[in-house]
């Protein structure tokens, strides 16, 4: 890393060199990765700890429904239904496939942007956003079903933990959809030229991360009994 910082292709006396060294286009960064991309990865590293905390909370509480009788006629801990009693695995599998497919469309959009196929990029981005919206729709459906079957947010510790974990993930997906929509809009206005195609890749990193988190949640929360 050390020797490549001094980029010999730049004349040190070149006025452009010193003038634009805050600008990120002329001066190669120390790591060779742009600030924006590195920043996104650093942020994603931090997000691991966040979802880790939420998943751990769910793990701790998942087998603690209420309704335990500590004395005749006296129960504590809220309702007796656990989230895992209501899981609809086939349905959740479909939404998981949807989110997985959105990762594919996202990466295809990034590749299209890298090849300067902007129309194709927008189509793939649109597909990604739609698949994400479909996933969110599935989650809304799942939540309403749970509530209808008597498992509300405040029912017991297990339900609170479940809704918080999946809700946080849902909020992340929603933010991702907004980012995708903004990217498409900016691209339509010509503000994402080929030289800035990396912006699409950075949005993609966030999107894939959300997908990766769902891979964890799907296994740890839904599938492992």
């Amino acid at each position, binding site marked *: 890393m050390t020797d490549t910082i001094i980029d010999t292709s730049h004349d040190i006396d070149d006025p452009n060199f010193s003038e634009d060294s805050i600008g990120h286009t002329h001066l190669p960064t120390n790591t060779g*990765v742009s600030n924006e991309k590195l920043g996104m990865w650093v942020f994603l590293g931090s997000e691991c700890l966040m979802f880790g905390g939420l998943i751990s909370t769910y793990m701790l509480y998942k087998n603690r429904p209420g309704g335990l009788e500590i004395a005749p006629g006296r129960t504590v801990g809220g309702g007796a239904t656990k989230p895992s009693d209501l899981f609809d695995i086939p349905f959740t599998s479909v939404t998981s496939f949807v989110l997985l497919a959105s990762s594919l469309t996202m990466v295809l959009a990034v590749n299209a942007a890298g090849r300067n196929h902007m129309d194709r990029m927008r189509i793939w981005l649109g597909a990604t956003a739609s698949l994400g919206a479909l996933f969110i729709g599935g989650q809304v459906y799942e939540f309403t079903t749970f509530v209808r079957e008597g498992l509300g947010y405040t029912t017991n510790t297990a339900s609170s933990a479940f809704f918080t974990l999946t809700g946080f993930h849902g909020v992340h997906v929603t933010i991702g959809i907004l980012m995708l929509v903004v990217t498409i809009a900016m691209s339509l206005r010509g503000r994402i030229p080929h030289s800035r195609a990396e912006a699409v890749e950075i949005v993609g990193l966030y999107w894939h991360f959300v997908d990766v988190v769902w891979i964890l949640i799907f296994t740890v929360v839904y599938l492992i009994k």
Partner: protein
Amino acid sequence: MAAVTASESHGAGDHADHHPSDLTYWKVFFALVALTALEVSTYWWPEEWHKVTAVLLIVMMLIKFGAVAMYFMHLKSDALILRRVFFFGMVLAVAVYIAALGAMVFFHDSGNAVQGRTGFDYPPREKPLPPPATDPPPIIRETTGGH
């Protein structure tokens, strides 16, 4: 070190060159789909396999995680520093939370031991408790601290 230096020779604009082709992505995607299908199928596997199933599920989860991170997120071909930062966070999260759950007696009999601490599986009493109080619900104070 070597990987960083190699990746640094790429400028900011030409990274598309070392990204895999669309075909690779489709292949990875179908592998992921197949794995997910296998994962889902474990739901209908016999109950007594649950220990093997759990291990298998975690292995498949890790493979899927790695595939998305390495291929879709380009960690395979990108600068080493990105891999380090991200996986450091990931490993730290796993280590810290497993330690925390361990300290909260999570791994001992999957939650039941925890319940014993919190007043749920309170040992059966000889004398019944007084009738339910009005609100707020009584706090069983002496059981909150220890386990």
